[in-house]
Protein backbone atom coordinates (compact mmCIF):
# COMPACT_ATOMS: atom_id res chain seq x y z
CA UNK A 1 0.00 0.00 0.00
CA UNK A 2 2.90 2.31 0.80
CA UNK A 3 4.06 2.22 -2.78
CA UNK A 4 0.67 3.28 -4.05
CA UNK A 5 0.58 6.11 -1.55
CA UNK A 6 3.96 7.30 -2.75
CA UNK A 7 2.94 7.29 -6.37
CA UNK A 8 -0.27 9.04 -5.47
CA UNK A 9 1.67 11.78 -3.70
CA UNK A 10 3.83 12.05 -6.77
CA UNK A 11 0.82 12.50 -8.99
CA UNK A 12 -0.51 15.19 -6.69
CA UNK A 13 2.84 16.94 -6.92
CA UNK A 14 2.77 16.77 -10.72
CA UNK A 15 -0.77 18.12 -10.74
CA UNK A 16 0.20 20.95 -8.39
CA UNK A 17 3.11 21.97 -10.61
CA UNK A 18 0.82 21.73 -13.59
CA UNK A 19 -1.88 23.97 -12.27
CA UNK A 20 0.44 26.23 -10.31
CA UNK A 21 1.75 27.69 -13.51
CA UNK A 22 -1.65 28.23 -15.04
CA UNK A 23 -1.72 31.82 -13.92
CA UNK A 24 1.01 32.64 -16.41
CA UNK A 25 -1.37 33.23 -19.26
CA UNK A 26 -3.09 36.00 -17.38
CA UNK A 27 -0.11 38.32 -17.73
CA UNK A 28 -0.16 38.44 -21.48
CA UNK A 29 -3.13 40.43 -22.41
CA UNK A 30 -2.33 41.77 -25.81
CA UNK A 31 -4.59 40.95 -28.69
CA UNK A 32 -3.26 38.51 -31.24
CA UNK A 33 -3.66 39.15 -34.86
CA UNK A 34 -3.91 35.61 -36.11
CA UNK A 35 -5.62 34.13 -33.10
CA UNK A 36 -9.07 35.00 -34.28
CA UNK A 37 -10.82 34.63 -30.98
CA UNK A 38 -14.18 33.11 -31.67
CA UNK A 39 -14.27 30.31 -34.20
CA UNK A 40 -17.41 30.62 -36.27
CA UNK A 41 -16.96 29.97 -39.97
CA UNK A 42 -16.02 26.76 -41.70
CA UNK A 43 -12.62 28.18 -42.64
CA UNK A 44 -11.93 29.16 -39.05
CA UNK A 45 -12.98 25.72 -37.86
CA UNK A 46 -10.65 24.05 -40.38
CA UNK A 47 -7.79 26.26 -39.39
CA UNK A 48 -8.46 25.66 -35.71
CA UNK A 49 -8.49 21.88 -36.17
CA UNK A 50 -5.34 21.85 -38.30
CA UNK A 51 -3.68 24.09 -35.78
CA UNK A 52 -4.63 21.72 -32.98
CA UNK A 53 -3.20 18.58 -34.53
CA UNK A 54 0.14 20.33 -34.95
CA UNK A 55 2.76 20.47 -32.28
CA UNK A 56 2.98 23.69 -30.29
CA UNK A 57 5.60 25.52 -28.28
CA UNK A 58 3.14 26.54 -25.55
CA UNK A 59 0.96 24.40 -23.39
CA UNK A 60 -2.40 26.12 -23.75
CA UNK A 61 -5.42 24.57 -22.08
CA UNK A 62 -7.93 27.10 -23.35
CA UNK A 63 -8.20 30.68 -24.54
CA UNK A 64 -10.92 33.27 -24.19
CA UNK A 65 -11.61 36.88 -24.99
CA UNK A 66 -12.43 39.04 -22.00
CA UNK A 67 -14.85 41.90 -21.84
CA UNK A 68 -12.20 44.37 -22.91
CA UNK A 69 -11.72 42.41 -26.15
CA UNK A 70 -8.38 41.03 -25.03
CA UNK A 71 -7.39 37.52 -25.84
CA UNK A 72 -6.31 35.49 -22.81
CA UNK A 73 -4.62 32.11 -22.78
CA UNK A 74 -4.69 29.69 -19.87
CA UNK A 75 -1.75 27.31 -19.82
CA UNK A 76 1.95 27.50 -19.25
CA UNK A 77 5.02 28.26 -21.32
CA UNK A 78 7.56 25.58 -22.29
CA UNK A 79 11.27 25.99 -22.81
CA UNK A 80 12.51 26.65 -26.34
CA UNK A 81 15.87 25.09 -27.12
CA UNK A 82 17.45 25.99 -30.46
CA UNK A 83 20.65 25.09 -32.22
CA UNK A 84 21.46 28.23 -34.17
CA UNK A 85 24.36 29.66 -36.12
CA UNK A 86 25.66 30.97 -32.79
CA UNK A 87 25.23 27.69 -30.95
CA UNK A 88 22.71 26.78 -28.32
CA UNK A 89 19.97 29.30 -27.51
CA UNK A 90 17.27 28.81 -24.89
CA UNK A 91 14.33 30.91 -23.73
CA UNK A 92 10.77 30.38 -22.64
CA UNK A 93 8.06 30.13 -25.27
CA UNK A 94 6.13 32.89 -23.49
CA UNK A 95 8.49 35.39 -25.15
CA UNK A 96 6.62 34.89 -28.40
CA UNK A 97 3.42 36.01 -26.63
CA UNK A 98 1.40 33.34 -28.42
CA UNK A 99 2.24 34.96 -31.72
CA UNK A 100 2.46 32.50 -34.57
CA UNK A 101 2.92 34.64 -37.68
CA UNK A 102 6.41 36.01 -37.23
CA UNK A 103 5.52 39.39 -35.72
CA UNK A 104 6.94 38.74 -32.27
CA UNK A 105 10.74 38.85 -32.43
CA UNK A 106 12.89 37.37 -29.70
CA UNK A 107 16.52 38.47 -29.44
CA UNK A 108 19.22 36.24 -28.01
CA UNK A 109 22.99 36.32 -28.58
CA UNK A 110 22.47 39.05 -31.16
CA UNK A 111 20.18 36.77 -33.20
CA UNK A 112 16.52 37.41 -33.87
CA UNK A 113 13.92 34.63 -33.81
CA UNK A 114 10.36 34.55 -34.99
CA UNK A 115 7.71 31.82 -34.83
CA UNK A 116 5.79 31.22 -38.06
CA UNK A 117 3.15 28.46 -38.19
CA UNK A 118 4.65 26.57 -35.30
CA UNK A 119 8.19 26.69 -36.65
CA UNK A 120 10.92 28.89 -35.26
CA UNK A 121 12.95 30.89 -37.78
CA UNK A 122 16.24 32.67 -37.36
CA UNK A 123 16.28 36.06 -39.08
CA UNK A 124 19.20 36.86 -41.27
CA UNK A 125 21.80 39.39 -40.15
CA UNK A 126 20.50 42.96 -40.23
CA UNK A 127 16.87 42.02 -40.62
CA UNK A 128 14.53 43.45 -38.03
CA UNK A 129 11.26 41.89 -39.13
CA UNK A 130 10.21 38.92 -41.22
CA UNK A 131 9.45 39.58 -44.86
CA UNK A 132 7.04 37.25 -46.66
CA UNK A 133 6.56 36.42 -50.32
CA UNK A 134 3.13 35.86 -51.91
CA UNK A 135 2.93 32.28 -50.65
CA UNK A 136 3.54 33.49 -47.13
CA UNK A 137 7.02 31.98 -47.03
CA UNK A 138 9.62 33.92 -45.09
CA UNK A 139 12.26 35.35 -47.43
CA UNK A 140 14.81 36.69 -45.00
CA UNK A 141 14.75 33.96 -42.37
CA UNK A 142 15.56 30.26 -42.18
CA UNK A 143 14.47 27.41 -39.96
CA UNK A 144 16.71 26.36 -37.09
CA UNK A 145 17.16 23.01 -35.46
CA UNK A 146 14.52 23.08 -32.78
CA UNK A 147 15.02 20.80 -29.78
CA UNK A 148 12.42 22.63 -27.73
CA UNK A 149 10.39 20.99 -25.04
CA UNK A 150 7.26 21.38 -27.14
CA UNK A 151 3.85 20.23 -26.09
CA UNK A 152 4.56 16.83 -27.66
CA UNK A 153 7.94 16.50 -25.98
CA UNK A 154 6.26 17.49 -22.73
CA UNK A 155 3.68 14.75 -23.32
CA UNK A 156 6.42 12.23 -24.10
CA UNK A 157 8.24 13.13 -20.90
CA UNK A 158 5.02 13.02 -18.89
CA UNK A 159 4.11 9.58 -20.22
CA UNK A 160 7.66 8.37 -19.69
CA UNK A 161 7.57 9.48 -16.06
CA UNK A 162 4.10 8.00 -15.54
CA UNK A 163 5.26 4.68 -17.00
CA UNK A 164 8.40 4.61 -14.91
CA UNK A 165 6.47 5.41 -11.72
CA UNK A 166 3.67 2.93 -12.40
CA UNK A 167 5.79 -0.01 -13.51
CA UNK A 168 8.68 0.35 -11.08
CA UNK A 169 6.05 0.37 -8.34
CA UNK A 170 4.67 -2.85 -9.81
CA UNK A 171 8.20 -4.28 -9.96
CA UNK A 172 8.76 -3.32 -6.30
CA UNK A 173 5.52 -5.01 -5.26
CA UNK A 174 6.81 -8.39 -6.39
CA UNK A 175 9.60 -8.25 -3.87
CA UNK A 176 7.11 -8.61 -1.06
CA UNK A 177 4.24 -10.55 -2.54
CA UNK A 178 3.43 -12.78 -5.48
CA UNK A 179 0.09 -11.15 -6.31
CA UNK A 180 0.19 -7.37 -6.74
CA UNK A 181 -2.47 -5.13 -5.24
CA UNK A 182 -3.92 -1.76 -6.17
CA UNK A 183 -2.68 -0.28 -9.46
CA UNK A 184 -0.40 -3.27 -9.98
CA UNK A 185 -3.39 -5.55 -10.18
CA UNK A 186 -4.56 -3.55 -13.20
CA UNK A 187 -1.13 -3.34 -14.83
CA UNK A 188 -0.14 -6.97 -14.42
CA UNK A 189 -2.76 -8.42 -16.80
CA UNK A 190 -1.76 -5.82 -19.40
CA UNK A 191 1.89 -6.81 -19.12
CA UNK A 192 0.90 -10.46 -19.35
CA UNK A 193 -1.31 -9.65 -22.33
CA UNK A 194 1.57 -8.07 -24.26
CA UNK A 195 3.88 -10.92 -23.34
CA UNK A 196 1.50 -13.80 -24.00
CA UNK A 197 -0.64 -12.44 -26.85
CA UNK A 198 1.81 -10.24 -28.74
CA UNK A 199 5.43 -11.12 -28.02
CA UNK A 200 5.32 -14.88 -27.53
CA UNK A 201 3.08 -15.98 -30.42
CA UNK A 202 4.73 -13.67 -32.98
CA UNK A 203 8.38 -14.06 -32.05
CA UNK A 204 8.35 -17.62 -30.76
CA UNK A 205 9.12 -19.17 -27.41
CA UNK A 206 12.84 -19.28 -28.07
CA UNK A 207 13.60 -15.61 -28.64
CA UNK A 208 10.67 -13.60 -27.33
CA UNK A 209 12.30 -12.71 -24.03
CA UNK A 210 14.95 -10.52 -25.64
CA UNK A 211 12.36 -8.27 -27.31
CA UNK A 212 9.62 -8.21 -24.69
CA UNK A 213 11.11 -5.13 -22.99
CA UNK A 214 10.97 -3.08 -26.18
CA UNK A 215 7.49 -4.30 -27.11
CA UNK A 216 6.11 -3.56 -23.65
CA UNK A 217 7.63 -0.08 -23.70
CA UNK A 218 6.25 0.67 -27.17
CA UNK A 219 2.81 -0.70 -26.34
CA UNK A 220 2.29 1.30 -23.17
CA UNK A 221 3.96 4.39 -24.61
CA UNK A 222 1.62 4.50 -27.61
CA UNK A 223 -1.48 3.46 -25.69
CA UNK A 224 -1.10 6.01 -22.90
CA UNK A 225 -0.26 8.78 -25.38
CA UNK A 226 -3.27 7.84 -27.52
CA UNK A 227 -5.50 7.98 -24.47
CA UNK A 228 -3.98 11.28 -23.34
CA UNK A 229 -4.78 12.60 -26.81
CA UNK A 230 -8.46 11.97 -26.11
CA UNK A 231 -8.44 14.13 -23.00
CA UNK A 232 -9.17 17.86 -23.24
CA UNK A 233 -5.49 18.52 -22.45
CA UNK A 234 -5.19 18.05 -26.19
CA UNK A 235 -1.97 16.16 -26.76
CA UNK A 236 -1.51 14.89 -30.27
CA UNK A 237 1.81 13.15 -29.80
CA UNK A 238 1.14 9.90 -31.65
CA UNK A 239 -0.38 12.05 -34.41
CA UNK A 240 3.03 13.70 -34.97
CA UNK A 241 4.72 12.06 -37.91
CA UNK A 242 8.15 12.65 -36.36
CA UNK A 243 7.17 10.61 -33.31
CA UNK A 244 5.68 7.70 -35.23
CA UNK A 245 8.66 7.78 -37.61
CA UNK A 246 11.05 7.52 -34.67
CA UNK A 247 9.07 4.57 -33.28
CA UNK A 248 8.98 2.82 -36.66
CA UNK A 249 12.72 3.31 -37.08
CA UNK A 250 13.28 1.75 -33.65
CA UNK A 251 11.43 -1.32 -34.86
CA UNK A 252 13.33 -1.24 -38.17
CA UNK A 253 16.69 -1.10 -36.39
CA UNK A 254 15.74 -3.90 -34.03
CA UNK A 255 14.59 -6.34 -36.68
CA UNK A 256 17.42 -5.44 -39.04
CA UNK A 257 20.08 -6.06 -36.43
CA UNK A 258 18.53 -9.19 -35.01
CA UNK A 259 17.96 -10.76 -38.42
CA UNK A 260 19.62 -14.17 -38.65
CA UNK A 261 21.28 -15.91 -41.58
CA UNK A 262 18.00 -17.37 -42.80
CA UNK A 263 16.35 -13.95 -42.82
CA UNK A 264 19.07 -12.31 -44.89
CA UNK A 265 19.37 -15.38 -47.07
CA UNK A 266 15.68 -15.28 -47.89
CA UNK A 267 15.84 -11.58 -48.49
CA UNK A 268 18.92 -11.33 -50.71
CA UNK A 269 19.05 -14.70 -52.47
CA UNK A 270 15.68 -16.38 -52.17
CA UNK A 271 16.14 -20.14 -52.26
CA UNK A 272 13.79 -22.27 -54.30
CA UNK A 273 13.17 -19.82 -57.16
CA UNK A 274 14.94 -19.54 -60.54
CA UNK A 275 18.26 -17.74 -60.27
CA UNK A 276 17.24 -15.00 -62.69
CA UNK A 277 14.30 -14.02 -60.53
CA UNK A 278 16.36 -13.84 -57.36
CA UNK A 279 17.80 -10.33 -57.84
CA UNK A 280 14.33 -9.00 -58.65
CA UNK A 281 12.97 -10.62 -55.52
CA UNK A 282 15.88 -9.23 -53.53
CA UNK A 283 14.99 -5.71 -54.62
CA UNK A 284 11.37 -6.23 -53.65
CA UNK A 285 12.32 -7.81 -50.34
CA UNK A 286 14.80 -5.04 -49.51
CA UNK A 287 12.21 -2.39 -50.31
CA UNK A 288 9.73 -4.28 -48.16
CA UNK A 289 12.05 -4.53 -45.19
CA UNK A 290 13.55 -1.05 -45.26
CA UNK A 291 10.77 1.11 -46.70
CA UNK A 292 7.36 -0.51 -46.79
CA UNK A 293 7.34 -2.10 -43.34
CA UNK A 294 8.48 0.99 -41.38
CA UNK A 295 6.42 3.27 -43.59
CA UNK A 296 3.27 1.23 -43.00
CA UNK A 297 3.96 1.33 -39.26
CA UNK A 298 4.51 5.06 -39.07
CA UNK A 299 1.73 6.10 -41.43
CA UNK A 300 -0.89 3.81 -39.88
CA UNK A 301 -0.39 5.17 -36.39
CA UNK A 302 0.00 8.79 -37.50
CA UNK A 303 -3.01 8.71 -39.80
CA UNK A 304 -5.33 6.91 -37.41
CA UNK A 305 -4.63 9.18 -34.49
CA UNK A 306 -4.66 12.39 -36.54
CA UNK A 307 -7.86 11.33 -38.26
CA UNK A 308 -9.42 10.54 -34.91
CA UNK A 309 -8.58 14.00 -33.60
CA UNK A 310 -9.87 15.67 -36.74
CA UNK A 311 -13.12 13.71 -36.69
CA UNK A 312 -13.80 14.35 -33.01
CA UNK A 313 -13.07 18.06 -33.40
CA UNK A 314 -15.13 18.31 -36.58
CA UNK A 315 -18.09 16.71 -34.84
CA UNK A 316 -17.71 19.14 -31.96
CA UNK A 317 -17.63 21.93 -34.54
CA UNK A 318 -21.12 20.91 -35.73
CA UNK A 319 -22.28 22.84 -32.68
CA UNK A 320 -20.93 26.01 -34.26
CA UNK A 321 -21.28 25.57 -38.00
CA UNK A 322 -24.79 24.12 -38.05
CA UNK A 323 -26.27 26.53 -35.56
CA UNK A 324 -28.30 28.26 -38.26
CA UNK A 325 -29.74 25.09 -39.75
CA UNK A 326 -30.53 23.21 -36.56
CA UNK A 327 -30.85 25.97 -33.94
CA UNK A 328 -28.35 26.18 -31.11
CA UNK A 329 -29.96 23.39 -29.09
CA UNK A 330 -30.31 20.98 -32.02
CA UNK A 331 -26.75 21.50 -33.23
CA UNK A 332 -25.40 21.03 -29.71
CA UNK A 333 -27.40 17.85 -29.19
CA UNK A 334 -26.35 16.38 -32.55
CA UNK A 335 -22.73 17.33 -31.99
CA UNK A 336 -22.81 15.91 -28.47
CA UNK A 337 -24.28 12.57 -29.52
CA UNK A 338 -21.95 12.12 -32.51
CA UNK A 339 -18.84 13.30 -30.69
CA UNK A 340 -19.59 11.02 -27.77
CA UNK A 341 -20.10 8.06 -30.10
CA UNK A 342 -16.87 8.74 -31.99
CA UNK A 343 -14.95 9.34 -28.78
CA UNK A 344 -15.97 5.88 -27.58
CA UNK A 345 -14.70 4.44 -30.85
CA UNK A 346 -11.52 6.48 -30.43
CA UNK A 347 -10.96 4.86 -27.03
CA UNK A 348 -11.03 1.53 -28.85
CA UNK A 349 -8.79 2.89 -31.63
CA UNK A 350 -6.31 4.13 -29.02
CA UNK A 351 -5.88 0.58 -27.80
CA UNK A 352 -6.13 -0.95 -31.23
CA UNK A 353 -3.39 1.21 -32.75
CA UNK A 354 -1.06 0.52 -29.83
CA UNK A 355 -1.84 -3.18 -30.24
CA UNK A 356 -1.33 -3.16 -34.00
CA UNK A 357 1.94 -1.27 -33.82
CA UNK A 358 3.28 -3.61 -31.15
CA UNK A 359 1.91 -6.70 -32.87
CA UNK A 360 3.41 -5.79 -36.24
CA UNK A 361 6.73 -4.92 -34.59
CA UNK A 362 6.68 -8.32 -32.93
CA UNK A 363 5.74 -9.97 -36.23
CA UNK A 364 8.59 -8.27 -38.11
CA UNK A 365 11.05 -9.19 -35.38
CA UNK A 366 9.66 -12.71 -35.40
CA UNK A 367 10.23 -12.96 -39.16
CA UNK A 368 13.81 -11.81 -38.68
CA UNK A 369 14.70 -14.28 -35.94
CA UNK A 370 12.63 -17.26 -37.13
CA UNK A 371 14.51 -20.52 -37.65
CA UNK A 372 14.38 -21.52 -41.31
CA UNK A 373 15.01 -25.16 -40.63
CA UNK A 374 12.16 -26.34 -42.83
CA UNK A 375 14.41 -26.19 -45.92
Amino acid at each position, binding site marked *: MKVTQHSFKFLVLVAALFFGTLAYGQHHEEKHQNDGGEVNTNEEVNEYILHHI*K*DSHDFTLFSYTNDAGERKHVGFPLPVILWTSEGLVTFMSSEFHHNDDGHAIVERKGLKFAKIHG*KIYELEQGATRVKFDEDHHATNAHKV*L*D*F*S*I*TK*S*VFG*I*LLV*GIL*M*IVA*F*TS*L*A*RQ*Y*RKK*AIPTGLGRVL*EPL*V*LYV*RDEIARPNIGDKYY*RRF*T*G*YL*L*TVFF*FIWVLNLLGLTPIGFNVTG*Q*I*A*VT*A*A*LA*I*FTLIIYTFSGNKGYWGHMLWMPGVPVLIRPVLAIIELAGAFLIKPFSLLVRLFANISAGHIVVMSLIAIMVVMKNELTAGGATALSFVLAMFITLIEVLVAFLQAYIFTMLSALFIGMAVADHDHH
Partner: protein
Amino acid sequence: METLLNDFSIGLFVMQTVIFLVLIFIMVKFAWKPIMNSLNDREEGIQNALDAAENAKLEMQNLQADNEKLLKAARAEREAMLKDARDMKNKMIEDAKGEAQAEASKLIAQAQESIESEKKAAIADLKSQVANLSLEIAEKVVKEELSNKGKQEKLVESLLGEATLN
Protein backbone atom coordinates in the same frame (compact mmCIF):
# COMPACT_ATOMS: atom_id res chain seq x y z
CA MET B 1 2.67 15.40 -48.99
CA GLU B 2 4.48 18.74 -48.86
CA THR B 3 2.60 19.76 -45.73
CA LEU B 4 3.42 16.39 -44.23
CA LEU B 5 7.11 16.86 -44.89
CA ASN B 6 6.87 20.44 -43.69
CA ASP B 7 5.24 19.24 -40.48
CA PHE B 8 8.02 16.76 -39.91
CA SER B 9 10.04 18.32 -37.15
CA ILE B 10 13.59 17.04 -36.95
CA GLY B 11 13.85 18.44 -33.44
CA LEU B 12 10.83 16.47 -32.28
CA PHE B 13 12.20 13.38 -34.01
CA VAL B 14 15.53 13.70 -32.21
CA MET B 15 13.87 14.41 -28.86
CA GLN B 16 11.53 11.44 -29.28
CA THR B 17 14.44 9.17 -30.21
CA VAL B 18 16.58 10.25 -27.29
CA ILE B 19 13.78 10.21 -24.71
CA PHE B 20 12.46 6.89 -25.97
CA LEU B 21 15.91 5.30 -25.86
CA VAL B 22 16.33 6.45 -22.26
CA LEU B 23 12.80 5.29 -21.48
CA ILE B 24 13.45 1.83 -22.94
CA PHE B 25 16.68 1.57 -20.98
CA ILE B 26 15.07 2.63 -17.68
CA MET B 27 11.96 0.52 -18.20
CA VAL B 28 13.91 -2.60 -19.10
CA LYS B 29 16.31 -2.23 -16.21
CA PHE B 30 13.96 -1.13 -13.46
CA ALA B 31 10.55 -2.38 -14.52
CA TRP B 32 10.36 -5.06 -17.20
CA LYS B 33 13.24 -7.23 -16.04
CA PRO B 34 12.13 -7.51 -12.42
CA ILE B 35 8.48 -7.85 -13.46
CA MET B 36 9.24 -10.56 -16.04
CA ASN B 37 11.48 -12.43 -13.63
CA SER B 38 8.86 -12.30 -10.89
CA LEU B 39 6.11 -13.39 -13.27
CA ASN B 40 8.23 -16.27 -14.55
CA ASP B 41 9.13 -17.29 -11.02
CA ARG B 42 5.50 -17.18 -10.04
CA GLU B 43 4.41 -19.17 -13.09
CA GLU B 44 7.11 -21.74 -12.44
CA GLY B 45 5.98 -21.95 -8.82
CA ILE B 46 2.40 -22.51 -9.91
CA GLN B 47 3.50 -25.09 -12.47
CA ASN B 48 5.58 -26.90 -9.87
CA ALA B 49 2.71 -26.87 -7.41
CA LEU B 50 0.39 -28.26 -10.07
CA ASP B 51 2.91 -30.93 -11.00
CA ALA B 52 3.34 -31.83 -7.34
CA ALA B 53 -0.42 -32.11 -6.94
CA GLU B 54 -0.59 -34.27 -10.06
CA ASN B 55 2.20 -36.48 -8.73
CA ALA B 56 0.48 -36.75 -5.38
CA LYS B 57 -2.70 -37.75 -7.15
CA LEU B 58 -0.87 -40.39 -9.17
CA GLU B 59 0.85 -41.67 -6.06
CA MET B 60 -2.49 -41.78 -4.32
CA GLN B 61 -3.92 -43.75 -7.22
CA ASN B 62 -0.95 -46.10 -7.09
CA LEU B 63 -1.43 -46.54 -3.38
CA GLN B 64 -5.09 -47.21 -3.90
CA ALA B 65 -4.29 -49.72 -6.62
CA ASP B 66 -1.76 -51.34 -4.31
CA ASN B 67 -4.33 -51.51 -1.56
CA GLU B 68 -6.80 -52.99 -3.94
CA LYS B 69 -4.22 -55.54 -5.02
CA LEU B 70 -3.32 -56.37 -1.44
CA LEU B 71 -6.97 -56.71 -0.55
CA LYS B 72 -7.52 -58.99 -3.51
CA ALA B 73 -4.50 -61.06 -2.59
CA ALA B 74 -5.66 -61.31 1.01
CA ARG B 75 -9.09 -62.33 -0.14
CA ALA B 76 -7.63 -64.94 -2.49
CA GLU B 77 -5.41 -66.21 0.29
CA ARG B 78 -8.33 -66.48 2.65
CA GLU B 79 -10.27 -68.25 -0.03
CA ALA B 80 -7.37 -70.63 -0.62
CA MET B 81 -6.95 -71.21 3.07
CA LEU B 82 -10.62 -71.94 3.49
CA LYS B 83 -10.51 -74.28 0.52
CA ASP B 84 -7.44 -76.02 1.94
CA ALA B 85 -9.13 -76.39 5.26
CA ARG B 86 -12.23 -77.77 3.64
CA ASP B 87 -10.18 -80.16 1.56
CA MET B 88 -8.20 -81.22 4.58
CA LYS B 89 -11.37 -81.80 6.51
CA ASN B 90 -12.82 -83.86 3.69
CA LYS B 91 -9.60 -85.76 3.34
CA MET B 92 -9.42 -86.40 7.06
CA ILE B 93 -12.97 -87.62 7.10
CA GLU B 94 -12.24 -89.71 4.07
CA ASP B 95 -9.07 -91.06 5.61
CA ALA B 96 -10.79 -91.75 8.89
CA LYS B 97 -13.58 -93.47 7.06
CA GLY B 98 -11.14 -95.62 5.09
CA GLU B 99 -9.15 -96.44 8.15
CA ALA B 100 -12.26 -97.36 10.07
CA GLN B 101 -13.39 -99.46 7.18
CA ALA B 102 -10.08 -101.19 6.99
CA GLU B 103 -9.97 -101.70 10.74
CA ALA B 104 -13.50 -103.01 10.70
CA SER B 105 -12.83 -105.40 7.86
CA LYS B 106 -9.63 -106.46 9.59
CA LEU B 107 -11.55 -107.08 12.78
CA ILE B 108 -14.24 -108.92 10.89
CA ALA B 109 -11.59 -110.96 9.13
CA GLN B 110 -9.89 -111.71 12.43
CA ALA B 111 -13.20 -112.55 13.96
CA GLN B 112 -14.07 -114.84 11.07
CA GLU B 113 -10.66 -116.37 11.32
CA SER B 114 -10.98 -116.98 15.02
CA ILE B 115 -14.51 -118.21 14.55
CA GLU B 116 -13.22 -120.58 11.92
CA SER B 117 -10.42 -121.80 14.13
CA GLU B 118 -12.73 -122.06 17.11
CA LYS B 119 -15.14 -123.93 14.92
CA LYS B 120 -12.40 -126.24 13.74
CA ALA B 121 -11.17 -126.72 17.30
CA ALA B 122 -14.71 -127.33 18.43
CA ILE B 123 -15.29 -129.80 15.61
CA ALA B 124 -11.99 -131.53 16.41
CA ASP B 125 -12.93 -131.62 20.07
CA LEU B 126 -16.33 -132.89 19.17
CA LYS B 127 -14.80 -135.46 16.93
CA SER B 128 -12.42 -136.69 19.60
CA GLN B 129 -15.21 -136.70 22.20
CA VAL B 130 -17.46 -138.58 19.80
CA ALA B 131 -14.64 -141.02 19.14
CA ASN B 132 -13.96 -141.48 22.83
CA LEU B 133 -17.62 -141.82 23.50
CA SER B 134 -18.01 -144.31 20.73
CA LEU B 135 -14.96 -146.17 21.93
CA GLU B 136 -16.29 -146.22 25.47
CA ILE B 137 -19.66 -147.29 24.16
CA ALA B 138 -18.03 -149.88 22.00
CA GLU B 139 -15.86 -151.01 24.88
CA LYS B 140 -18.88 -151.25 27.13
CA VAL B 141 -20.85 -152.99 24.37
CA VAL B 142 -17.99 -155.35 23.66
CA LYS B 143 -17.48 -155.96 27.37
CA GLU B 144 -21.16 -156.69 27.72
CA GLU B 145 -21.22 -158.93 24.71
CA LEU B 146 -18.12 -160.78 25.64
CA SER B 147 -19.35 -161.50 29.11
CA ASN B 148 -21.93 -163.88 27.66
CA LYS B 149 -20.32 -166.82 25.97
CA GLY B 150 -23.39 -167.99 24.05
CA LYS B 151 -23.85 -164.68 22.64
CA GLN B 152 -20.19 -164.47 21.59
CA GLU B 153 -20.47 -167.68 19.74
CA LYS B 154 -23.71 -166.64 18.13
CA LEU B 155 -22.09 -163.41 17.03
CA VAL B 156 -19.14 -165.17 15.66
CA GLU B 157 -21.38 -167.48 13.90
CA SER B 158 -23.54 -164.68 12.44
CA LEU B 159 -20.42 -162.82 11.44
CA LEU B 160 -19.04 -165.91 9.92
CA GLY B 161 -22.38 -166.48 8.17
CA GLU B 162 -22.17 -163.04 6.77
CA ALA B 163 -18.66 -163.35 5.76
CA THR B 164 -19.17 -166.05 3.23
CA LEU B 165 -16.01 -167.31 1.78
CA ASN B 166 -16.24 -167.30 -1.85
